[in-house]
């Protein structure tokens, strides 16, 4: 497989509603993007942004109103292609009265594995997701986090080339999240392609080669986490001390934030040298100057705020 693992072209999903289904709600609008083979791609967005809709379209669980997508070079309608794809649904749920081992064995049977191989894989997966001691307990007695682990195990049980995870960290405690992160990195090191949706931004920043941010059903940005946040203007942070307190005057000092005996001041990159001169003249002792790296979270919040402002404007003007 040399081409992109996922190709999405103008994918749109509208749901009819209202009297005689005459109105339409657009869950996803003209999504076009690619996920390269071997990369970890994070699909970010607030609740209701269209992340799960996109993933369900890719898994052929819902059908697009317009556009199309290809996974591993094949159309999403090709069921046999699912042999090479692992999928973790959002908030997964399985048969209550089966044990984790039985559920995994059941799913493994879809992949024509020999009974001995199946048994070995099930045991291996239970160990990998930290359920080896709980494998014989019925799933109705499992917590949400444990079900999430079973879901992850069934998604990677058959050693797929492409793994699609819908909110894999949801419901997990910090230990569970760390374990899932380790599994994703392990899959990446094994050459697998991973697409996962999340709104836990530090996880995305830590794991992803690239991220796509979707808000209001539209893709707002795509790229490497560092690259995508760079769209915002860079700022510089100056850390300084004031040895002779009370005898200094500068408008900049009023803008600084005091933490203990130190002061922090953020200024635009182009104003840095002027600010340093002003501070020195005011008697400040410069301790450090560092570039403020905007976080993915800030970028994300900026997009969400813009989308909400636009939605509010539409509500007011009716356009």
């Amino acid at each position, binding site marked *: 497989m040399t081409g992109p693992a996922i190709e999405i072209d103008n994918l749109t999903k509208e749901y009819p509603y209202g009297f005689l289904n005459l109105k339409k709600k657009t869950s996803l609008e003209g999504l076009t993007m690619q996920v390269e083979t071997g990369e970890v791609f994070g699909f970010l967005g607030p609740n209701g942004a269209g992340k799960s809709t996109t993933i369900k379209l890719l*898994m052929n669980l819902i*059908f697009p109103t317009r556009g199309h997508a290809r996974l591993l070079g094949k159309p999403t309608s090709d069921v*046999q292609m699912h042999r090479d794809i692992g999928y973790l*649904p959002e908030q*997964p749920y399985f048969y209550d009265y089966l044990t984790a081992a039985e559920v995994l064995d059941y799913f493994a049977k879809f992949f024509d594995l020999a009974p001995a191989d199946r048994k070995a894989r099930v045991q291996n997966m239970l160990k990998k997701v930290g359920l080896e001691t709980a494998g014989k307990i019925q799933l109705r007695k499992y917590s949400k986090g444990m079900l999430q682990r079973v879901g992850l195990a069934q998604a990677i049980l058959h050693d797929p080339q492409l793994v699609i995870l819908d909110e894999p960290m949801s419901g997990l405690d910090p230990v569970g999240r760390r374990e899932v992160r380790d599994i994703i990195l392990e899959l990446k090191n094994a050459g697998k392609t991973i697409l996962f949706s999340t709104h836990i931004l530090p996880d995305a920043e830590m794991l992803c080669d690239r991220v796509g941010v979707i808000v209001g059903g539209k893709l707002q940005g795509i790229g490497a986490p560092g690259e995508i946040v760079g769209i915002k203007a860079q700022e510089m942070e100056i850390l300084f001390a004031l040895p002779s307190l009370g005898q200094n005057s500068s408008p900049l000092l009023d803008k600084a934030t005091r933490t203990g005996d130190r002061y922090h001041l953020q200024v635009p990159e182009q104003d840095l040298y002027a600010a340093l001169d002003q501070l020195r003249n005011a008697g400040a002792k410069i301790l450090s100057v560092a570039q403020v790296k905007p976080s993915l979270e800030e970028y994300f919040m900026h997009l969400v705020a813009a989308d909400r402002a636009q939605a509010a404007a539409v509500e007011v003007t009716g356009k």
Partner: protein
Amino acid sequence: MGAAVLVGQISIGIEEIVIVSLGLSAISFIGLLMAVFIGVGLVSKEMDKRTIYALLSKPVRRWEFLLGKFVGLVFTLAVNTVAMSAGLFLALLYVKHTLERSDAAVFVAIYFILLKLAIVVALALLFSCSTTSLLSILYCAGFYIAGSFVQEMRTLRSDLAGPVAAAIMRWLSYLLPNFENFNVTGLAAHGTKIPTALILQNTLYAALYCAVVLAAAAAIFSRRNFK
């Protein structure tokens, strides 16, 4: 089956008829309840609890999923029917102390009940693919009741119901499953031989009807969005 023996004992001279009639009715009624309630829940529960998401992400086609559900429930009903039939034959043995050649008609009647249940399961799957569980149960009940009066619908006199109503009823009677043909309880109770032609006809009819209904269910299910 105990009730069949008990009622049979107070029905002087017609114990066998009562036992067979009651026994076959019980097998049919309990099988019908299972076919409708389990049949409707087979698909709707998978959708409600979202277990279907992980399942359909495996290399399985939607029609295969549906066919698997159908075959699984029909097999379950067959096991249940065989177990209940064993009770019926034990009751017959208790009363007659032996089984006769004419009792073969009871086997055929049981086979027809199973064919009827297979049609009900197919209908339950069709309705549950397209509407809510409650409506699916009501539709199944409606189809079963209407399907048990197909002959009456076909012979409805136009001077009583009006020509349009009579014509509609006649057309409807050909669309509805003809469950009357599967009811041979009377013949079986009296030990009358059931014609081989009827066995073949009912087998073919049930197979065709199930195939058409399942094809319709698969067509609906294949286009369904799992939100």
